[in-house]
């Protein structure tokens, strides 16, 4: 049997995980471990135990120890200068150390192509943050701006070169790296544009040249992108590691973000988690849709990470602009019921206004327009209230459209009657102020100028 076992086993050994597969699998498992850590009570216990040990550290001086201490002090000095230099901006004495030593050292020790793309994107973000700071202070001279533009070009070229290199060995990884780069470029470009639009004339300088370079680089990368999406497994692995990072960052934002802001970020992360679960559930039936869902989740996670880590972006863009809030089904039903109630209130107000108006304030032509509109809104609301009893999710979208339509009509009616009758203006103004979340376009009013003439 030994010979059989040996032959059989030798053939089996040909089946093995490739280095890439093994790395990806390991990353997925480690991400899972980070995302589902051992219970915090156990970790807290671990901290306490290690804290107690510190009371019993003993010092025993000898010449070797002194030498070691001297060496350590020299190292500490280098590390300190290097650390302080990290906060330098163009024009500072230590800026050369930041760019020429710190960042180059990190570039040298960054080995993987994907990691290199991430690092070059980070360097690009740093140059933009510096430029933004200088522009805000009115110190962004033409020379400095030209230097920033050429640095952005250098870092984006480096990133794009690594992506091209990756394409030859690992196409999926290259696509993921390209997605990460274009998301960062897009965010920075939009954020700078918003900053320039919001700045007070004469108080801060424009960053138009930098924006142009960002847009040019982004377009070039978008053209170079293949239409193919990465493999499902690769996407899942990347989404898992990026969402884990986002959750970790969320723990760190407590120092600067208010409870409401933290809640906003948490809500977005929960939405992303739901999208991932939906994508995973649909992979068997529609893999393409699942992959698109994961790409969307990945891009939103990248945006959230930039929001949490980049003060420049955070100052110019709201979280809602970066990652729009997705209402849950329950929230949507709640908003729908509220809107139905508001529409009913406006119907009642309009009917009261009509019944109390004098013949001269509202002529027949206006009544001819207003009465069918009220009747139509009433009919729509009656039908909606009946449908709402079933809580049918499949009808939710249709119901939302219907209530918005009815509300728009009755809002126009109330606006018109306010012009004619006058005494419902307070109610109407309160209504407008209180309902910002549903856009009501007064331009779609059914009334014409002629109707308003008494």
């Amino acid at each position, binding site marked *: *049997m030994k*010979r059989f076992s040996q*032959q059989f086993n*030798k053939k*089996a050994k040909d089946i093995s995980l490739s280095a890439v597969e093994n790395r990806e*699998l390991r990353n997925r498992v480690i991400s*899972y471990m980070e995302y589902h850590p051992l*219970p915090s009570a156990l970790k807290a216990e671990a901290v306490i135990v290690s804290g107690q040990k510190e009371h019993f550290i003993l010092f025993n001086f000898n010449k070797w120890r002194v030498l070691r201490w001297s060496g350590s002090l020299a190292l500490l000095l280098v590390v300190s200068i290097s650390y302080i230099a990290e906060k330098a901006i163009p024009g500072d004495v230590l800026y050369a150390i930041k760019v020429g030593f710190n960042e180059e050292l990190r570039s040298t020790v960054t080995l993987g192509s994907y990691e290199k793309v991430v690092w070059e994107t980070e360097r690009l973000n740093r140059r933009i943050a510096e430029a933004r700071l200088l522009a805000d202070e009115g110190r962004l001279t033409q020379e400095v701006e030209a230097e920033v533009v050429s640095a952005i070009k250098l870092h984006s070229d480096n990133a794009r070169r690594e992506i091209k290199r990756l394409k030859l060995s690992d196409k999926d990884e290259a696509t993921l790296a390209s997605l990460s780069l274009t998301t960062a470029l897009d965010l920075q470009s939009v954020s700078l544009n918003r900053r320039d639009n919001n700045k007070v004339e004469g108080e801060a300088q424009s960053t138009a040249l930098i924006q142009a370079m960002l847009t040019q680089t982004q377009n070039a990368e978008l053209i170079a992108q293949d239409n193919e999406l990465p493999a499902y497994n690769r996407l899942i692995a990347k989404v898992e590691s990026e969402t884990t990072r986002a959750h970790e960052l969320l723990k760190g934002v407590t120092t600067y973000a208010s409870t409401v802001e933290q809640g906003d970020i948490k809500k977005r992360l929960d939405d992303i988690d739901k999208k991932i679960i939906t994508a995973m559930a649909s992979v068997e039936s529609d893999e393409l849709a699942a992959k698109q869902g994961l790409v969307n989740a990945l891009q939103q996670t990248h945006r959230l990470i930039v929001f949490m880590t980049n003060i420049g972006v955070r100052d110019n863009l709201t979280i809602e602009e970066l990652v729009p809030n997705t209402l849950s089904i329950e929230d949507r039903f709640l908003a729908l019921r509220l809107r139905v109630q508001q529409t009913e209130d406006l119907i009642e107000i309009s009917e009261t206004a009509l019944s109390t108006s004098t013949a001269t304030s509202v002529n027949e032509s206006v009544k001819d327009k207003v009465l069918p509109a009220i009747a139509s809104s009433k009919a729509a609301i009656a039908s909606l209230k009946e449908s709402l009893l079933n809580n049918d999710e499949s009808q939710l979208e249709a119901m939302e459209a219907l209530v918005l339509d009815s509300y728009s009509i009755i809002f126009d009616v109330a606006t018109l009657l306010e012009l004619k009758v006058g005494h419902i203006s307070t109610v109407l103004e309160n209504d407008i102020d209180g309902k910002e979340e549903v856009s009501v376009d007064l331009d779609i009013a059914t009334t014409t100028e002629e109707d308003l003439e008494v």
Partner: protein
Amino acid sequence: MTSDIVEDQEKRFLEAFEEYSDALFRHAAMRINDREKAIDAVHDTFTKVWSYVRQGHQIDSFRAFLYKVLNNLIIDEYRKHKESSLDALLEIEGVDEGSFPELSESSVEALAATIDGRKAFALLADIPEQYREVLIFRFVDDLGPKEIAEMIEESENVVSVRIHRGLRLLRNKIEAGMAAAEKRRVTK
């Protein structure tokens, strides 16, 4: 559980990943015949085991536990995609698996000695799952009949019967292939 145990569990879990991930993948790939699904199965195995560790359970032997979890996942995968269950497959075979008490490791050895391992390996996908399962456990993962019995929750006797029958099936298929080749050669 003290902090040392917490750290120890994390360390042991990662060591188990390094040590067994490839072997588990090999086992899964041979059983499922789908590389991506096999990787997923190994991933799910480790995440399930990690969840078990998180609940405060101590795992003495990661190897046996990992194989057990993986085996359950593979059976689930089969149940999802096969029209008939494994139990039904057994019934179709019409085998009373407790009817060969005389089978021993030595008779398996004698039978295996008559088979070419490379040819047998190539024909593995052509034999029923319940035989393939035990042959992979026995000759790829190097588990003994007792360990396999614990893994698949059957008696040692049933395991020995299945190994024996699996080998016999492979030998028959090899012989049939050789006979067919010979026939083709003669007719030429």
